[in-house]
């Protein structure tokens, strides 16, 4: 069970893409050479230099337009299928730290990208075409270990992203769910029992540009290994991250 979780309140996201930039800044990822192909969305997809990407989708429905934004990234599954798949081939290629961050190591170069992508219910892992190393969002494991909230959450101006202890985030997510349902009755929390990054979706999944594979493609749960969490390994002061923190409310950091 991950110690921490994040809530992505999609109903509050304005697609300012501050998260996308903050991620590149903290992780020192280069800007990609892009062209405009007729959409705001750029880069076109996740890559080893783009760990988080705001995806745009326009919906035309009975003369009304909707424009839905979706911050795509690794959900940091509590029992990550990518790790399970990796473990069968190269042990230690994909790891999970005590905070719940699922991390790709250099050993991922020994894995088959197709298999790892297919193992991921959200189609997140990407591979460097040259080094063959795979990469993705780290949940800012280094920041969390140093008592800082993830860079994307820190920068979010609208209150769409919140970080905190898992039980507190779940509590908040359930409360928000009830509130948002009043305006958007179909609102739901996506896979909240299975992931650390819990998405509150106020519209049906089909209205977002996102990948959610049918559950049947996921490895059978009983086959998963269980993990013993090492205790007492957290750095001093980590408890400060205990409260729920949004980026635009950085006072608590």
């Amino acid at each position, binding site marked *: 069970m991950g110690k921490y979780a994040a809530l992505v309140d999609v109903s*509050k996201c*304005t*697609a*300012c*893409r*501050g998260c*996308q*930039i903050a991620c*590149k*800044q903290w992780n020192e990822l*280069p*800007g*990609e*050479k*892009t*062209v*405009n*192909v*007729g*959409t*705001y969305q*750029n*880069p076109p997809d996740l890559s080893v230099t783009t760990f988080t990407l705001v995806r745009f989708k*326009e919906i*035309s429905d009975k003369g009304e*337009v*909707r*424009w*839905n*934004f979706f911050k795509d990234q690794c959900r940091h599954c509590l029992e990550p299928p990518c790790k399970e798949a990796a473990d069968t081939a190269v042990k230690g290629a994909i790891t999970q730290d005590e905070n719940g961050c699922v991390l790709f190591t250099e050993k991922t170069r020994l894995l088959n990208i197709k298999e790892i992508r297919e193992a991921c219910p959200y189609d997140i892992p990407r591979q460097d075409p040259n080094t063959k190393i795979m990469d993705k969002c780290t949940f800012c494991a280094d920041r969390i270990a140093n008592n800082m909230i993830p860079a994307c959450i820190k920068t979010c*101006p*609208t*209150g769409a992203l919140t970080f905190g202890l898992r039980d507190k985030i779940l509590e908040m997510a359930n409360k928000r769910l009830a*509130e948002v349902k009043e*305006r958007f009755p179909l609102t739901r929390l996506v896979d909240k029992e299975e992931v650390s990054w819990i998405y509150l979706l106020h519209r049906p999944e089909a209205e977002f540009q996102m990948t959610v594979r049918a559950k049947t493609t996921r490895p059978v749960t009983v086959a998963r290994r269980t993990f013993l969490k090492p205790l007492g390994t957290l750095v001093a002061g980590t408890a400060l991250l205990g409260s729920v923190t949004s980026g*635009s409310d950085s*006072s608590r950091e």
Partner: protein
Amino acid sequence: MTNHWIDIRNADVILVMGSNAAENHPISFKWVNKAIDGGATLLSVDPRFTRTSAKAHVYAPIRSGTDIAFLGGMIKYIIDNKRYFEEYVRLYTNASFLVNQKFKMPVELDGLFSGYDAKNRKYDKSTWAFQMDGNGLIKKDPTLQDPNCVFQLLKKHYSRYTPDLVSTITGTPKDKLQKIYEVYSSTGKPGKAATIMYAMGWTQHTVGTQNIRTMAIIQLLLGNMGVAGGGVNALRGESNVQGSTDHCLLFHILPGYLRTPSASLSTLKEYNDKFTPKTKDPMSANWWGNYPKYSVSLLKSFFGENATKANDFGYAWLPKLDDGQNASWLVLFDEMYKGNFSGFFAWGQNPTCSGANANKVRLGLAKLDWLVNVNIFPNETAEFWHGPGMKPQNIKTEVFLLPAAVSFEKEGSLTNSGRWAQWRYKGGNPPGEAWPDAEIMTELYYRVKALYKKEGGAYPDTVLKTTWDYGPKGPGGKIKHVDIHMVAKEINGYFLEDKTIRGTLYKKGSLVPSFAFLQDDGSTSSGNWLYCQSYTEKGNMMARRSRKDESGIGLYLEWAWAWPVNRRIIYNRASVDKNGNPWDKEHPVIQWDQGTKKWKGDVPDGGWPPLSAGEQSRYAFIMKPEGHAHIFGPGLADGPFPEHYEPYECPIEKNLMNAQKFNPTIKIFSPETTTPLDVVFSCDPRFPIVATTYRMVEHWQTGVMTRWQPWLVETQPQLWVEMSKELASLRGIKNGEKVFVQSARGQVEAVAMVTDRFKPFNIAGQTIHQIGLPWCFGWVTPSDGGDSANLLTPSIGDANTMIPESKAFMVNVVRKGV
């Protein structure tokens, strides 16, 4: 903003119109979202469906340039359905004032108000006046029934703005109009508030000022001025544009909105008399009656000991405008184009991309002898001489690029949209030879002064008598570095001699506690009266960082400092009834404490008791000589009530509202007298599509600061043009294809973004297409990014401010390679 950013959370209804806050003021959505969490309704009115519209409860499309028709229809709806807050309107606005019986309106004069002089395109405003009684007081009808009272005139004027006519002008479907009117006007009662978030989508029109006036009228009718969650809120386009305006960025004002003197006002007395309003009403505070205290204190800050009573405090040394001279942006570049300037400082700006009709600007720069560009990155202005279409060998202009420090490399203050002056600290040293602006200005000052001393020249005293006391002086009387705290203190102002005021002695050299202490006898200085109290003997008020909020409505009175006198919501005396009890009990801005006989809450607009105290009290709108807010506004160039006129370059033959096609008082730049680039083509089959320009969240202004940033360029690498599927199909354009957008003045290449977020408009039975494109790109970088959309925009400005009409003009779109 009359209110401030945090206050948006207190609104019951938020209208975003003439702005795109989610994209261009992203942090504002923290407060918009909080308001929505509390049950507020978000309305978005925009020609295209934006990232703001994506979050709105209701979206309504509108053809660019028809906001007065849209809002005029709302005024009619409010009056017809009695949605106005009658007690508020009666107490605080000029609705009951009787207007001169000779005053005539567009309904009677085919779109004109009385007094029009067609030859000079100007109004004689003598009939736009109030009726006075024998004691010199304005005649009123508190029942609002007199046919000459403002309320009845307003009703008559907007009776023409029927839903059918408004819909046919704006292209907004009638059901959407109805929905917006209904939701917005639901706040016309005590305890409810609606706010308006607007920006350049309202100002950059030939009727820009009147767009905002129309909204101000609505806010007054609904009782939304002065209250929490209300106000008329301009979202400023740069972090310190409010501060730069306060400190007289524009030609017509001196610091603190004092007026630039004109040549015929030859003495200080004449100047002060002209701009000091008078009233005979004992209940009117008439705050501008203090004008001479502020003007004399300003002169003392400019000229120090050189300014004496005997020499009119140096008034003669102030530069003057010729009478009637217009020195606004468009006129400056017109004169530059005609070769009437030898030099130009483009300081922290990039006019070759930001200026309307940018080709004219670019050609104008080529007529200069020298150009100094102070900036942080290479840009299209400093590089203009080898830009598209330029022949460097034929350009005589010598260009200097002075590298400047960025905001994080210097200490100082920023004033945000909510009028908060916030102190900012230095994060690091500027690289290489980059200097803070104040150091560049100081060096310039000393060099210019030395030249004047050596060679003389025109008006030497203006320079030679100016003080420059911003730090310890070395040999030769020159300061080594600017101490920015000394600048801030000069802006606040000092006592220049020992002075006893209301029984308290203020020592010579001490800082003035607030503008209420400024004097007109030369005993005080203040570089900007509005900022007097920002830096006092108690310290630098702008550096305060207390998070205490006893108000409960997010005033945070000890966080930084707001002008005037730390008031967070201006006109707040209108947030209470005549006994001083807040209209909104849940969000009280101020309230009268009967026990202490004092106001609690925000800093009130003056400490006088509430209106029920009779002559002890003062009216709420203290900056107006009559003390009442202007529903009837006789001061503007184009009329006391806003009237719909078409944009100067527009798609229809005839204004459907009246016989005047466009604003009758705008200044026309005729191609016959200046340049073919000033041409406009209305209703021309070659340019049949309405266009507008805008900003985006990923780039900043012209992009000088962001187009060198790979992470931002990655998200928005190239100029695009948004268009409807219907228009794209008509022109055979597919999404993602390269197209040319062409106007009478220029063309740009852009990527077509074909979208359902733009829809064709039905205007009087005719299909009118509209497109939109951002103006943040430029040819210098990125190399395949495209150029500025301002190559398309016209040289025409608002009748009052001359801000260019960049938000409504005509273009054509064609596929590249056809």
